[in-house]
């Protein structure tokens, strides 16, 4: 896959380390490189956000929420295809996220196949 050669990676932002590591493990099993961040602030502070090919983020996090992060990335004109994951199926948020450029909005627990497909779709955009 051409994307893979571009040395781009999938960024995972979640405040729960179990979720982060599980995601990372999953992406690794399909050969996708992933970097994990405990919060939106950490992701932005890393400076790698411009190189991220895809972003998987939790909506509800202490401090900066997933939507806030998306808004900040948009503001920086850093439009990363984003897949939101949320435990609470907030329809209002879902619409807001899609409008802001989210590619997918998945509930917890998530379907691995659906997640991977969404990642792949995002990478191909």
């Amino acid at each position: 896959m051409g994307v893979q050669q571009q040395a781009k990676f999938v960024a995972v932002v979640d405040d729960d380390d179990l979720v982060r590591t599980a995601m990372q493990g999953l992406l690794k099993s399909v050969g996708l490189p992933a970097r994990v961040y405990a919060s939106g602030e950490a992701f932005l502070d890393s400076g790698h956000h411009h190189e991220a090919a895809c972003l998987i983020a939790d909506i509800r996090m202490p401090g900066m929420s997933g939507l806030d992060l998306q808004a900040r990335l948009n503001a920086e004109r850093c439009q990363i295809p984003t897949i939101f994951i949320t435990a609470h199926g907030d329809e209002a948020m879902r619409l807001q996220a899609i409008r802001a450029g989210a590619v997918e909005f998945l509930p917890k627990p998530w379907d691995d196949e659906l997640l991977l497909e969404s990642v792949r779709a995002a990478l191909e955009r």
Partner: protein
Amino acid sequence: MRQPLRILSLEDDPRDTELIYGLLEAEGILCEVTRVDTQPAFLASLEGDAVDLILSDYSLPSFDGISALKLAMSVRPNVPFILVSGALGEEVAIEALKFGATDYVLKTRLSRLAPSVRRALREADERAERKRAEEALRRSEAYLAEAQTLSHTGSFGWNVTSGELYWSEETHKIFGLDRSAKPTMDFVFRRIHPDDRDTVQRTLDHAIKENMDFSIEHRVLMPNGEVKCILALARPSKPSPGVLEYLGAVTDITDRKRAEEDLRRSEAYLAEGQKLSQTGTWACDTATREMIHSSREHRHLFGLAPDKAGIPPFEEFFQRIHPDDRGPAAEDLDRAISAGRDVEAHFRIVLPEGTMRYMYGIGRPLVKPSGDTGEYVGAVMDVTATRQSEIKLRESEAYLAEAQRLSRTGSWAWSPATGENRYWSDECFRLLGFDPAEGMPPFETFVERIHPDDQPIVAEKLERAVRERGEYEVDYRIFHPNGEVRDIHAIGHPILNSSGELVEIVGTGIDVTERKRAEDNIRQSENELRHILDFAPQQVAVLGSDRSRIYSNRAMLDYLGLSLEEWQSGDPRNFVHPDDFERMMTRDHSEFLKGRPHEIELRLQGTGGKYRWFLVRYSPLRDEHGRITRWYLAGTDIEDRKEAEEWSRRAQADLAHANRVTTMGELTASVAHEVNQPIAASLTNARTCLRWLAGDTPNLEEAREAAMRIVQDQTRAAEIITRIRLLFQKAAPQRELVDINEVIREMIVLLRGETARYFISLQTQLTADLPQVMGDRVQLQQVLMNLTINGIDAMADLDGTRELVITSQPATDGYLMVSVSDTGVGLPPERANHIFDAFYTTKPHGTGMGLRISRSIVEFHGGRLWADENTPRGASFHFTLPTIEMQA
């Protein structure tokens, strides 16, 4: 004029007598002649008449001249006897002269008569004169010898040239040399005391050389060892040219020396005695009033120089007397001297340096053996010390009397010999109601005044004291003359003489009427108080400062089913619950030592054997010095209250549980999310694992890691579920050592979903190594949960920063403090006090019990929960908890 010569004429012929008379007359010899011619007449005249000359005839008719001569010689031997005879043979004449006749004259040659008479008379006179002189010499020698003997003085002559010595009898005696022995200077020097020999020799040599008098005092050592003191005085005389002779006297002055020595000694003693007794003596001439003697000490007493020669005049002595005393002293002395009476005076002397001395002087006329009263002698004694001690004694007597008056204590002495009072102090009179002016009443009178009921005990105690020679102590009432009855407490002490016999009983009497009255009042009020206490439903007891059990009221005794004596002497283990006894003892011990009021809850066994809970309060009673004299114990039956408390605690636990369940219900969504997270992660990890295993070459390493993650996920899920279950569990409160930071972290795990849900940033600032807390973990977690949820709720509907900060830190006095601060709506204005009230809530779906229950839990743990404003907005909730450090 010479008297006529009285002649006794023995003549038978009157004519011859006439003739002789005529012859003598003619010769100018005036005479009176008495003629006798018989022997009896002759003898009578010899014996009876004054006769100057006897003229006797030789031949008489009845008598003869020789016989007459013999007669005359025997009767009047000194009267000249001339024989006048007509014829006298030669032989007769010689015989007559031999017999003592003065002369013989022949009648034929009467012309010889007158010269013979004259010669006879002259010879008689000479003889008489010589005899007188001899007698005088003899007498004066006897006198001298006697005088020498009496005065112990001997005389001597010393011919220095020939070396010969002439000694009187007394000199022999003094030197102890036999009278018949001849003294020599060698002998003298042998007798002189060896120590004095040189001095004597030198003095003699010097005197001889200078031809001078000498006077030597030296000692003589007698063969028997006796030592005599000798004074030898001598003066040179020159009986003939070239001869030196000393005439002198030696006196034995041993006695005088001894007397002098004695006198000197007794004078020294006297002076010393005067000095010691501070007594001076003086004497004055009554006529001239001149001071003729003033002893050293006398002058010293008056502050006059004792060493100055001469006796100061009277006036100088008087100047020393205090001006107030001078006049009277001088007058008294003057009058006494004039009247020859004794005098006695007290006066003061002011010494030059200003000190005042008290003197006592006496004087009396000195009557000499001659009866003369020309001197007046006196003695002056310094009595300052006596006087001062008298003053002191008087003062201390006054103090004692004052002390007795103030303390209403009288002292007395009673004689067992007479059975009578020997001494009563003034206060004794007063307190027994007798008049001191009338003197001590007879013992019987005193006894009659004693209350009749008390008379026997007084008598009995006194008898016993006498019998046993022991202490006497008795209380009695006495009637005063005004009818008043006073209570007297008397104490007596036996005084024994050296043989152990009782001499007297001395003691004191104290008027204890007021004290007794006060004691009676106290006793009465004590009785009343006891009565009241016995009626009181509370258990009351009194302990001594040593925790000895003194008194317990009826309620206490009835409950325990003990008599007062059983309670006092019994073991408290018999009625205190065994589980409470040790606690009571240790706690009591420390609090008793500190002397602080304290209380303890313990179970006491009642009559039925059933224990009931009591709250026992201890309160110390202190005396004026702050020393604890009593402990008062008040026991309250709190069995019912204990039951109510127990019920309340259970109710509270139920309520807390209900609160937890409700809270958890509210958190269902968050909790579900929290459980969902690990489950979701777990599923992903499981599938990932399968992916690594599938395929041609399964990656076992990756699969194993994924499986490990599954384990972690499941562990997390299990933990959460366990905690939730604990919160739902309805368990009795547990007490264990809890790390508050751990409780905070566990709580955060449960609430993370909730904070995430409201986009709340939850921060913790936990101080590491905080001391642990003894408490119920679940309940403490519940408190934290309530406060955190409140904080989340306060921020849920708010825009802007949503921060929840949980801090833990040490607080003062071994407490720790946990704070939960939010940036929410803050406390309701003016209702801040009500947020802890039951059923008060600001939330639409709140029960209004969360904070109320939290506060109960915190207070149950011994802490405090309160709220204040957070800055810049929001609220802070703080609670404190006692740590084990405080309890240690």
